[in-house]
């Protein structure tokens, strides 16, 4: 019966191609716009770390001293990052399954051939856990070993683009790269990976790409690599030296942990609290003993990383689809009632009201689905326009979740447009119409 209804519906759509394309076009425009803008919003609210968003935490401690809180106008504020000494101490905790301090630096990358000029690459120093915490995909090789971390070996993981530029995209594991005047052995090459936001360090150019080169964190002391990101002091470092900076109260490191289960957060919090308490007896943490463990979605919210207007635009786009559907009601009513005589003949020949109702509703849902399909094509165009406007536009794509959303949206739009006309069609009395004939 269902396929019979579909066949009749298709026939009815073919009978008046102009009207049908108008109806389909109306849905298509609505779906095209709303899918594109909901996808844009989705980029900021989607699960950032599949399977780990509720277990990965960013650690902040209130190591700020002096007379003021970190942000002088907000007594609740905590420093965005941690000090080197605190990072080293946090690494001692046995509770997290994975953990790492990390920061970004810059260094000139010298290609082996003179044909390509050297360029300044962003490098991220980290323990090997970072790759697993953020589920970074590898094309070749993998993270360096625990041993390499412990011995501060000169090994590197490079990203897809850097591998293209330096090695023409081939498997470069085992080859060497030259950063400034030091050589590093490549142990892993990332597959193309472009998250919408640079999750490791969202307080600095959050919409940028992840860094190009990754090196073991323990190289920071032997190579004296300075941060390229934000760094804040409340106490001057005098006289300045790299060692003095490492020992100082400067906050410049991001600290990430992944717990085995979300429930471990209390135990880990207690561990941090006892560490802070211990430091207090040494004269640090003089203001408060507060600390904060935030998930990535909480940081996105706290740093306000979704641009003003993205949520507004997605709501306006959905309202636009609603207006499209509402307007189609009138057109569909006209279409159905114009063939009232046909319906009344079918009713007289024994079709039940329910059958007539389903027949017409299926026709509307068919319009919704065809319009939805056309709308998806249209949304690809709209997404291309949006992509040009957003710095992180290349991370914007229609994933399976959004395709499903578009399909459901098409059915809902078809339902809004078709429910009342279908109901009216099934109320057509057989006798009246036959009499007119």
């Amino acid at each position, binding site marked *: 019966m269902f396929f019979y209804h579909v066949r009749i519906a298709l026939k009815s759509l073919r009978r008046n191609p102009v009207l049908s394309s*108008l109806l389909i076009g*109306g849905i298509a*425009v609505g779906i095209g*716009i709303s899918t594109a*803008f909901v996808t844009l919003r989705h980029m900021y609210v989607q699960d950032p770390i599949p399977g780990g968003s509720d277990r990965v935490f960013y650690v902040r401690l209130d190591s700020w001293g002096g007379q003021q809180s970190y942000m002088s106008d907000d007594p609740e504020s905590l420093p965005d990052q941690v000090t080197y000494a605190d990072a080293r101490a946090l690494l001692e905790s046995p509770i997290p399954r994975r953990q790492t301090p990390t920061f970004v630096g*810059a260094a*000139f990358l*010298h290609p082996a051939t003179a044909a390509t*000029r*050297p*360029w*300044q690459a962003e490098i991220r120093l980290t323990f090997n856990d970072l790759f697993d915490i953020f589920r970074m995909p590898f094309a070749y090789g993998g993270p360096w070993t625990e041993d390499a971390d412990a011995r501060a070996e000169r090994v590197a993981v490079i990203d897809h683009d850097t591998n293209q530029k330096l090695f023409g995209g081939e498997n470069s594991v085992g080859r060497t790269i030259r950063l*400034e005047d030091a050589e590093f052995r490549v142990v892993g090459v990332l597959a193309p990976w472009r998250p919408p936001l640079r999750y490791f360090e969202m307080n600095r150019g959050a919409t940028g790409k992840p860094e190009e080169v990754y090196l073991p964190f323990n190289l920071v002391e032997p190579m004296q690599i*300075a941060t390229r990101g934000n760094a804040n002091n409340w106490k001057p470092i005098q006289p300045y030296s790299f060692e003095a900076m490492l020992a100082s109260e400067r906050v410049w490191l991001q600290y990430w942990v992944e717990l085995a289960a979300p429930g471990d957060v209390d135990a880990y919090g207690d561990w941090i609290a006892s560490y802070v308490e211990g430091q207090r007896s040494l004269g640090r943490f003089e203001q408060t003993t507060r600390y904060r463990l935030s998930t990535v979605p909480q940081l996105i919210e706290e740093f*306000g990383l979704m*641009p*003003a*207007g*993205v*949520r*507004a*635009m997605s*709501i*306006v*786009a959905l*309202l*636009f689809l*609603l*207006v*499209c559907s*509402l*307007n*189609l*009601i*009138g*057109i569909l*009513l*006209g279409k159905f*009632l*114009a063939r009232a005589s046909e319906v009344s003949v079918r009713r007289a020949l024994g079709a039940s009201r329910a059958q007539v109702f389903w027949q017409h509703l299926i026709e509307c849902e068919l319009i919704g689905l065809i319009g939805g399909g056309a709308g998806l094509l249209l949304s690809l165009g709209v997404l291309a*326009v*949006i992509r040009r*406007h*957003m*710095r992180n536009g290349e991370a914007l794509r229609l994933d399976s979740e959004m395709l499903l959303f578009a399909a459901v949206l098409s059915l809902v739009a078809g339902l809004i447009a078709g429910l*009342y006309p279908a109901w009216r069609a099934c109320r057509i009395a057989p006798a009246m119409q036959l*009499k*007119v004939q």
Partner: protein
Amino acid sequence: MHIGPVVRAMNHNRTRVTLIILEIAITLAIVTNCVNVILAERAKMATRSGFEDTGIVRLHTRPFVPEFQDEAFIRTTVDADLQAIEGVPGVEAVANTSFQLWEGGGSSTEIRPAGSSSAPVRTQIYYGSQNITQSLGATVSEGRPFAEGEHGSGSGEESASVVIISRALAEALFPGQPAAGRSIEFVTGTGEATGDPYAIVGVMERFFNPFGMPGADPDPFEERGLFYPQRAGSYAQGLRYLIRVSDPGDMAAIITEIERRIVEVNPGRVVEFEPVSEKKARWFATSSLMVTTMTFIIAMLVIISALGLIGITALSVAERTRQIGTRRALGATRADILRHFLIENAIITAAGLALGIVATYALNVFLVANLVDAKMPPMLILFGIALLLLNAIVATLPPAFRAMGISPAVATKSI
């Protein structure tokens, strides 16, 4: 006079009437809010910086050879760079500076009139070589630009203790008085003056550079800005310049020539150019995306709602063909029928618009909570109402005239 039957007829077709009212209300809400957002975003994009944004290009050179670790070498290179760039035909002015327009962020400090104990004023602050105001195309309305030698000499002499400040900063420091010739001092976090006082030699008329990030208040310092004379650069930060060209149309050719000459001065560095107009466009990317989207939505909305309205009123006439024939047969004139439909449409449209005004403000409250600064001006609602009235009239007149033309014979034909 005819209101009674019209209302009773409408009561008979409650669903259809509700539908049209809803359509009109939501359309009014969306159209007016879209126009409002467009106006607000366009106003933002029209923000003038006080500088000749379209003609300025930023040049960043990042050295990778070790001799740049020497400060004296950097100074000579800066001088050679400035000279090389100035010599390129079409270049109006060039300066070595830490100032970056339309970047978001920058550096800031606190100052106050020298020797006073008044509350310090926070301002943006950047170094710039001699031609900094010329390279920005800024109007120095009081005093003068930096003079030769003030940015220190090649032999490592100190820069002069002079500054150029913006009009807004001058007003904050010396309300209602001329500022050129006065002096300021820098203030530390604890409120003590540091270093020697600086003499104000010039006042720039305007200074707008977004300091907050997009979404936040872009202008927390309200156009307060300060330049001090200096040439600088470092191995880590590179050497940075702002170049203003006389004809923005020649930008591409001039950039190629500058790059050639810069590499000639010293090839041990990477050279990056970025026209300020591109940075400004990037700064306003979300705004221009909103303008494009909202314009498209309005256009589609007007077409679709006109189609929908035509469809539904045509139907309402078609449905009532026999009733109209009967009324005509019972003595109603053609004018009566036309009046019936016009009154009906007037009532429905009025109800839709009334509901629409409520919906407009509701949507606006939501948008203002999610956008910056797009409060609904009442004039705009009037515009939206006028637009929708026009829409309603155009869509309902043809069916009403068709109804008027229905002959009384229709009533008798099928009975």
